[in-house]
């Protein structure tokens, strides 16, 4: 059971990362860099409140992709409340999604 739940969570983190990537496709490189910096600093100080405040503030501006944003928020919400270790994983999934959006085409 425990293993199943771990796999399930991993799948959720992956989904969050993909959704972030899709939502942030049209973000500028400069803004993305600034956002990632702020988010990384929030993780470093383990400040969940600041981290999600920043994420939700940006998501709120993505009215063109409202449906995707709603899905993402549902996925994040379903994981709540987050332990420290879970927060670490969700937060990095979000950031990796933003960086991936800037990463260009897959090179595999």
């Amino acid at each position, binding site marked *: 059971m425990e293993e199943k739940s771990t796999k399930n969570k991993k799948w959720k983190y*992956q989904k969050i*990362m993909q959704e972030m990537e899709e939502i942030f496709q049209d973000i500028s490189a400069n803004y993305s860099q600034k956002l990632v910096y702020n988010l*990384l600093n929030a993780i470093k100080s383990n400040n969940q409140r600041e981290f999600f405040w920043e994420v939700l503030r940006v998501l709120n501006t993505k009215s063109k992709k409202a449906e995707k944003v709603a899905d993402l928020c549902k996925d994040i919400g379903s994981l709540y409340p987050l332990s420290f270790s879970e927060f*670490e994983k969700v937060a*990095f999934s979000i950031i*990796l999604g933003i*960086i*991936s959006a800037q*990463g*260009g085409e897959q090179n595999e």
Partner: protein
Amino acid sequence: MKNTELYTFLQFTGNWFIDAGILGFVNLMEEVYGWDLEELQERIKENEDIVYYGYFPIAYVHYNNYSYLENEKRLFYWLKTKDLKFPEFKNALEREEIFSKVWKFIEKHYKNKDKIKLSFSGKFVIFTNFLFFQPKWKVDQQREAFREILELKNFSEETLIYVDKTINKFLPSKGEFQNLLYGKSFITVFDLKKVIKLPLVFLLTFPLGFEKLGKENFCFYAPELKFSYKVNKKLKILEELSNKEKKSSSKRRILTFLWREVIDALVETKSLWTLENMYIIEYQMGQNQNLLKAEYIGIPKLQASVLIDDKIRDALNCHIQLGKGAREAQIWLIEKFIKGEGLYEKILKHTNYALKQNKNPGFKASLYALAIDAKIKENAENSSKALFSNDFFRGYKFLVDEIKETYLLLASRANLISQLFENEEEKSKLVYPLFSALKKKNRISFVNTLLKKFTELSKKENLSPLIKFIFENIISNDVSWENYALALIIGILTSRGGENGGEIHEE
């Protein structure tokens, strides 16, 4: 009853201390008569009675008296120099007749002051107070004891019936079998007779199964006679060479050498199955016939299954530098792996050393070691906690495949990360905080540092596979994330173009 019994040739029983005795028997016959295993087997097949009742007692007595003299060891040479004749054994002779001929020869040539002088030095020193070795025993008593050993008469000596420390120092003594209500030892000669013919002969030749290397006695044991014989014979050659060159035979040198021989013998005898049942038995003898140290280095099935693979074995078969100093700071990866020591810690130290010395860590060996360590940790986490899981019986074949896949993944991502940065300074600036985070096991700090660097990059074409790698193996992996993280650091370090930092492969 000639040649009609179960065993008409020598073979191992699966019990290591009887098997060490069988090996000792083979060594004894080789030392005294110059026969190798094949010839001995032929002779046993031809007429085993002549070998056990004729050649063996003479060889045993002769070796006890002359083993210390290089040239006199070989019996036929000794006979020639003294112009003596070896007794003739005709095929039709009965056991008792063969033995009485042999004993006449022994009494004539080895008797001194009404006794056969035995065990005053050498390997048989452990038997000083046992049967015919006792200084007080006269030749008649010695003969009768020999007859008992060869089962030509019923056992009258208790020590021969209850097998304990008196016969083999690796066993407990009478008093130490504390949980026995009756009897002196739970191993009796009658039990052993069910396993092998003439068991006492092999208990006597036990010390000869070992090679003396320095102060210690070594025996390499795998449950196949031919295989063990080949490896131990080469071990002996090593010792002879070391003595001639006056080099010390350190344990590390022996193990390095031994392993090479094991692989050679494996290929030669095609007995891969023995690999997972090998032991190195090592002991040191004290003054009062005490064993000072006995070590059994078993090679666990998991490690053996992994080492069977050529590529993995070749990659691990090297020494890596963990610090300054020629010998002490070098480790042999295969040895550490066999002993079940964590390879991640070793590679972390190796990378630390390389970083301090501004050198490159060994790329292939390090990444293979990290892949092996990661897969073993993950396997332990995911598999059932049963002692003998299904994987145990399947022989961990899947693990070997997974290790190779992981190595390829680590190597490709290590290469990829090295291509992201354009100049040396940039790489050096990044490596120190990453390594410091890893040493503190601080995943947040590690990923933080790395991602900050990623956002600063002007070229972001190759980022996708790396991001996937970081997500799957570092962020979502609580069991072995350090292994994957270290591989990235090694990737950055080895691309700096510095000199090799100590991955010395075995030749």
